[in-house]
């Protein structure tokens, strides 16, 4: 049984169709990432799965339960960090962990949890004085007090410096190592590539691509291309003398490489053309290229800093 199952999920806020009929499932122990620009519907989706919001249409199952109806039961088995995690100003991380654990009726070992989220250096600092990264790590620690089977992380690294992000990533990898299912939303492509087993790209409430990053790249990307600097002469020669798919954009000539043969033919023909050429590179569509293609340049999405 998959840990999370979503089928035909819809949610509307007034006139805005925030989530427009999405379906996916997340296997046990998998790290699954919802990737998309701001306003794509990621947070709405994850909050419906956490049981924090009701849905309009469709079915959702988390650990076999309806999150809205069985929230009380479900919450004992899942861990959540809301987007922009904040806590009371005055408890220290240690106190916060003991408190949050007590709410679940669990006696937790704060030291062990603090070590697990790499926060043992700040255990006695009031929450309001913690850095952004430390706050986020405390959020992770809180989401773990009840030893959850599924952990939901809503944009866990937004606004963090690169070092703090890497620390959060490290914690997510540990969660996966412990066999927990992790569902993560992000608008950082790099983060999805680093952490997720599978990715769903969302835009305007719909899933526009889903699969492993390699699958998405090969399905929606253009594959490998040879890019070389050269003029009209080179372009014309290649078009006339080869069966290669050649394009020109100013001084840049791009040759689509469908197989290894294409690469050899291209190199040979460039030499034979006698035209001026230089700066030869071989490129491949990254997830970012695919993402921009699917979401549009207008999307707020950008790779990490």
């Amino acid at each position, binding site marked *: 049984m998959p840990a999370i199952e979503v089928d035909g999920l819809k949610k509307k806020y007034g006139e805005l169709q925030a989530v427009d009929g999405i379906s996916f499932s997340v296997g046990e122990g998998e790290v699954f990432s919802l990737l998309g620009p701001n306003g794509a519907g990621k947070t709405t989706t994850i909050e419906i799965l*956490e*049981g*924090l*919001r*009701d849905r309009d249409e469709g079915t959702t199952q988390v650990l076999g339960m309806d999150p809205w109806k069985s*929230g*009380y039961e479900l*919450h*004992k088995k*899942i861990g*959540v960090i*809301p*987007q*922009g*995690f*904040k*806590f*009371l*100003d*005055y*408890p220290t991380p240690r*106190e*916060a962990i*003991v*408190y*949050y654990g*007590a*709410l*679940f*009726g669990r006696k937790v070992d704060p030291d062990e949890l603090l070590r697990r989220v790499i926060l043992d250096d700040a255990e006695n600092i*009031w929450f309001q004085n913690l850095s952004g990264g430390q706050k986020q790590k405390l959020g992770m620690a*809180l989401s773990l007090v009840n030893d959850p089977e599924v952990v939901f992380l809503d944009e866990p690294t937004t606004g963090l410096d690169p070092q703090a992000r890497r620390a959060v990533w490290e914690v997510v990898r540990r969660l996966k190592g412990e066999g927990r299912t992790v569902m993560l939303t992000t608008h950082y492509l790099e983060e999805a590539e680093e952490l997720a087993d599978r990715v769903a790209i969302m835009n305007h409430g719909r899933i526009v691509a889903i699969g492993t990053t390699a699958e998405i790249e090969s399905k929606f990307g253009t594959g490998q291309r040879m890019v070389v600097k050269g003029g009209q002469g080179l372009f014309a020669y290649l078009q006339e003398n080869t069966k290669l798919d050649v394009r020109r954009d100013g001084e840049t000539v791009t040759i689509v490489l469908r197989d290894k043969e294409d690469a050899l033919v291209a190199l040979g023909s460039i030499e034979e053309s006698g035209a001026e050429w230089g700066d030869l590179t071989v490129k491949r569509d990254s997830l970012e290229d695919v993402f921009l293609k699917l979401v549009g340049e207008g999307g707020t999405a950008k790779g990490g800093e």
Partner: protein
Amino acid sequence: MTADLKVYGRSNLRSKEGFFFTLVFPIILILLFGAIFSSGGISQTKVYVQNLDVGPIGSSFVSALNSTSNYCSSNSTSGLCLRPVPSDQNFTQFLTSNSASDGVVIPANFSAAYQAGDKVNVTVYGNPTSTTSAVVSGIVAVIVNGFNVHGATGVHSVGITSKTAVSSSYKYIDFLVPGLIGFAALTSPMFALVNISSTYRRDKVFKLLSLTPLTKTEWLLAKIIWYIGTTVVSFFLMTLVGVYAFGAHITLNWGIGMFLVLGPFFFVSLGMLVGTVSNSPEAASVVGNLVTFPMMFLSGTFFPVASMPKYLQTVAHVLPLYYMIEGLNDVMIYKNFGPAYFDAGLLLIISAVVFALAVKFFRWRED
């Protein structure tokens, strides 16, 4: 719930604002108001004298008393000031209606008995706990001794009967202490709850809490228990200041406890309700102030409701804080438990309704 109580309480003490408004602010108020209203003419002791004697000795006794009260002038701020009481008045009622405790009554047969050398007593009314009463009885004793020396028979025939006035004298401070306790029970929970109900929502702390088995009712109860605690502490602090710094007359009894529990219960619930129905923290604080300030000034916190114009008194009677302060006045000063139980019952009903509404309207999660 215990865990929530612990964390909230600790946070509250660590936050400078919380600490200030909960414990320090009320003390400042009592010192301020106490100082303002306790000085001036109030410290001049008025001694009410009723001469029931028709003979000459009674009059000379009054003159003797009068000679000791040479401070009784308009520009003096201390000392004795004699106030004659007509002989047809009921003396104790007269004292009560003038909120006084010190007085001297010379009996009807004073001249006759004194001249005959018979034993006769002058009655001194006073409040045993009051220093002014001690001064008055001291002065009367001196005069009585003088009369006994002058007496023709040389026998000590004049004595003193001490009586405690039926009602102790009420000073402004007596009324101020219950008012300020009501004030403390109003302000810190109201402001705190209005604030957290909206900021917790903004910061998604409620979401985080909704992900735990803690229920809304438990959460709110933890807040109520905390503020009952702080109200009790500030009650004791204010009572100490009131009694030792300004000589307030306060009797401790369990009736006070009812109001120390009901007050925070009501205001925590009300604060939560106000914060919940407002959309943003800014709106919440505006609505909170709209509710809090009129209630603060019109419920008899700083000024007796009885001294207000009629229409404001009518307003005061619909404010729940009025019943708390009224009830506290009844139990702390007048020891008048009947009306206090009525006030407490009324407060309990209103509180229960507001609590239920607050729990109903306040949402952990959204739909």
